[in-house]
């Protein structure tokens, strides 16, 4: 058995795994950033103290929008992308 051949075989798999991990981390990392922002600046979440707030102050909650983008990306975009990454990897093999 040639060790070089084994490393050549493993290289694409490792790259795919790294890409899979990065893709799986982007959405949660974004959502986490939104949560941390909300904790650091809780006064930005007007839903916590809605009395006297106008319509737009209640609708546009910036930290929650960041969380929403992260969740949308993770649950809508990423699943299909991971499937396609696996298909691409299988095709290469």
């Amino acid at each position, binding site marked *: 058995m040639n060790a070089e051949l084994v490393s050549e075989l493993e290289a694409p798999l490792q790259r795919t795994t790294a890409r899979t991990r990065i893709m799986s981390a982007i959405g949660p990392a974004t959502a986490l950033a939104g949560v941390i922002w909300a904790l650091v600046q809780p006064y930005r979440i007007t839903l916590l103290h809605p009395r006297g707030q106008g319509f737009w102050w209640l609708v546009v909650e910036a930290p929650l*929008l*960041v969380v929403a983008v992260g969740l949308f990306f993770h649950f809508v975009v*990423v699943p*299909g*992308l991971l499937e396609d990454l696996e298909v691409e990897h299988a095709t290469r093999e």
Partner: protein
Amino acid sequence: MQPASEHVHWLFATGFLLLGLCLLGEAVVGTEVWRRRAWRAYLWPGLAFALGVLLWPVMTFYTNSAIHMLAHGAWAQVLMLAGAVELALVRGKLTSRWWRLGMTAGFVVSGGAFLVHEQNAWLFQRSAFLHHLLGWTLLVGAIFPLARCLRPRSQAVATGFALTFVIISVMLYCDRDVAPVFGHMSPLAGSPHR
């Protein structure tokens, strides 16, 4: 019922953040994998085009000054142009990679418009500071869409292009009508909002 300008900035920040994440996803997995599903291939160019369309109501309703209207109108046009060019490239209606200069033009015009329409040189005041920062970020960041024309398969260029949108979204989220930048604010800027 008209939203305050910071709300508009935050809504656009959300759009740009999603755009940046999609571009980052494409940079990570590669264009071939990203375009395996048609809806995904059209996602970020369509989003860029939609953001351009949504800038028209901003131009129409936020008429603080003529220069604001001109700047928002210019953004709307160049963002729609950039989005439309990318849509046509995905669709195959356009094939030359040089069409991607449309996005470069979008960056340059947007950066210039940011700098021109912020007439206050108040760098101690949040929105003025951020408009200057956004303008220069876009002008410097234009190197990435330009590099995409020269090296369309470069992962580093694609990542830089994506992160530029993420950084722009962070700056837009930071935008508030009247607020200090680094803890200090001159009384000239008015009373601070939260």
